[in-house]
């Protein structure tokens, strides 16, 4: 029986490469029309920008990933445009162009990547507000900016990277608004310097933006996105308490990333709260093995570690699969990967400390701010439910809150609001956020058309 890889980003690509090297023919499933994943997403046919323009400093890595995949394509059972919507013991349920199909596996490597972590603020559901990652996808995959005057709001390395990419591509970047203080980043400089090139690139983006007159504000408290029917402004308070407002027609919003780990959840992999990332992450050992037999994890879907480590983790998980199948393992290659993963972890931890998730901002969301954008449920509604019912009925956790308020029950399954909802709930109940738990994944992991009988 075959090995099934879900996700054809850097992690999935390197996993496939190792498996093919051992003579296997893996199945690779990706919802996207082509391979590449998020950072190395390929543009549609008919687009002609060169790698240097699309991927900047990462052009060589992007090319290497694409070339590797293209070279291996004949040895892969590649299924693009295919959503893996459920995972059962030994079976992955998929749907492609409306056709359902359950794909059996002996081992699966879930390389499902991440999405933006969001903190709602007044006006965040207006047309013209996109995630930071979404803003980048618009530029990379479509050659479009999300607006004519764009503000970048949030924190994390992607904030400066995407603002830089926009400005370089000729977009008007009206402001970069970082909730983190520069002092905090500088304090992490020692740890960050271990990241070598990554650290230098980050400083370069900031310096470039400043040199090109892009206003950058740090330590901001976001106040609101204003507008009637569409974005017209964004306002914030600076560290001294002064309020500012700038006219924009689009806002890119993001506070770091969170793993897309629903399939691991459905597989029964236990989750742990990682205090450094401030994320729930599926449990795995350093080789990518989970407590669930046959289920392996790699890349950002198993905890945010960035693209380079996603490649290493993908390859490492594939070696674990080979070991599980009783096939030969190259001890030298494994030792090199383990060393790379261990060294990378230190840098990642410094990066997370440099751009911490502003949990207080989420916890302090105003009562009338919409928390769940699917069903327009406010933070106040969640707090009321928490106060009235949850406090008396242990355990006070997010799945019960979800049942009571429908927060997290909408079509996105809490992908967008889950992180902030947990903070609101925890602060209302005066408990650490890890105690309110996390929203559990449900099949289908994304809405699918009504399925033919075969898949039921």
């Amino acid at each position: 029986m075959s090995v099934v890889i879900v996700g054809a980003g850097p992690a999935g690509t390197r996993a496939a490469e190792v498996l093919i090297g051992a003579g296997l023919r893996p199945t690779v499933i990706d919802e996207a029309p082509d391979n590449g994943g998020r950072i190395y997403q390929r543009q549609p046919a008919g687009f002609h920008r060169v790698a240097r323009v699309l991927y900047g400093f990462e052009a060589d890595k992007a090319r290497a990933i694409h070339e590797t995949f293209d070279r291996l394509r004949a040895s892969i059972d590649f299924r693009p445009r295919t959503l893996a919507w459920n995972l059962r013991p030994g079976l992955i349920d998929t749907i492609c162009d409306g056709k359902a199909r359950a794909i059996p596996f002996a081992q699966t490597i879930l390389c499902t990547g991440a999405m933006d972590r969001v903190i709602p603020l007044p006006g965040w559901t207006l047309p013209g507000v996109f995630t930071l990652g979404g803003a980048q996808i618009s530029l990379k995959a479509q050659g479009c900016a999300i607006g004519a005057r764009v503000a970048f709001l949030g924190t994390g390395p992607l904030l400066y990277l995407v603002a830089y990419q926009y400005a370089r591509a000729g977009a008007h970047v009206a402001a970069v608004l970082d909730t983190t203080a520069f002092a905090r980043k500088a304090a992490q400089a020692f740890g960050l310097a271990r990241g070598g090139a990554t650290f230098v690139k980050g400083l370069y983006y900031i310096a470039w933006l400043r040199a090109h007159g892009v206003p950058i504000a740090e330590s901001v408290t976001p106040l609101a996105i204003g507008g009637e029917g569409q974005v017209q402004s964004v306002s914030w308070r600076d560290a001294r308490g002064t309020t500012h407002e700038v006219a924009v027609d689009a806002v890119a919003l993001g506070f770091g990333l969170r793993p897309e780990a629903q399939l691991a959840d459905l597989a029964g992999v236990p989750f742990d709260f990682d205090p450094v990332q401030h994320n729930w992450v599926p449990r795995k050992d350093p080789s990518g093995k989970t407590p669930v037999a046959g289920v392996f994890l790699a890349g950002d879907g198993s905890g945010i570690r960035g693209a380079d480590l996603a490649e290493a983790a993908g390859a490492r998980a594939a070696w674990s699969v080979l070991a599980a199948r009783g096939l030969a393992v190259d001890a030298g290659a494994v030792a090199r990967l383990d060393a790379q993963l261990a060294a990378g972890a230190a840098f990642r931890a410094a990066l997370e400390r440099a751009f911490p998730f502003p949990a207080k901002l989420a916890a302090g969301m105003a009562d009338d701010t919409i928390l769940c954008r699917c069903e327009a449920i406010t933070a106040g509604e969640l707090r009321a439910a928490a106060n009235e019912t949850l406090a008396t009925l242990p355990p006070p956790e997010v799945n019960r809150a979800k049942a009571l308020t429908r927060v997290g029950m909408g079509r996105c399954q809490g992908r967008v609001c889950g992180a902030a909802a947990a903070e609101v709930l925890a602060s209302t109940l005066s408990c650490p956020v890890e105690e309110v738990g996390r929203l559990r994944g449900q099949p289908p992991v994304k809405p699918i058309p009504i399925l033919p009988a075969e898949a039921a």
Partner: protein
Amino acid sequence: MRLQRLAETDRPAVSFTLDGRPMAALEGDSLLTAILTEDTYLRTNEFGDGRRAGFCLMGACQDCWVSVEGSGRVRACSTPITEGMRVSRGTVQP
């Protein structure tokens, strides 16, 4: 807000209709790009929160659904535009 085309504008044109109005896009556009370069929204929130224009562009938030004649409801961010598509933004049922 309108999406601004910054590059790759030398692609062949595609025509489609939006709520019955004839519109032009470029081959390779997603439905989201095709609509939001010309207009400000994709759908209306069923719970009274007004107009929406997508959010994540990566198939995760489900806030970009539109109706396409013959295909039913689709995610605008992950559906490529094709010649002659008839797209409508009528209120989507919860």
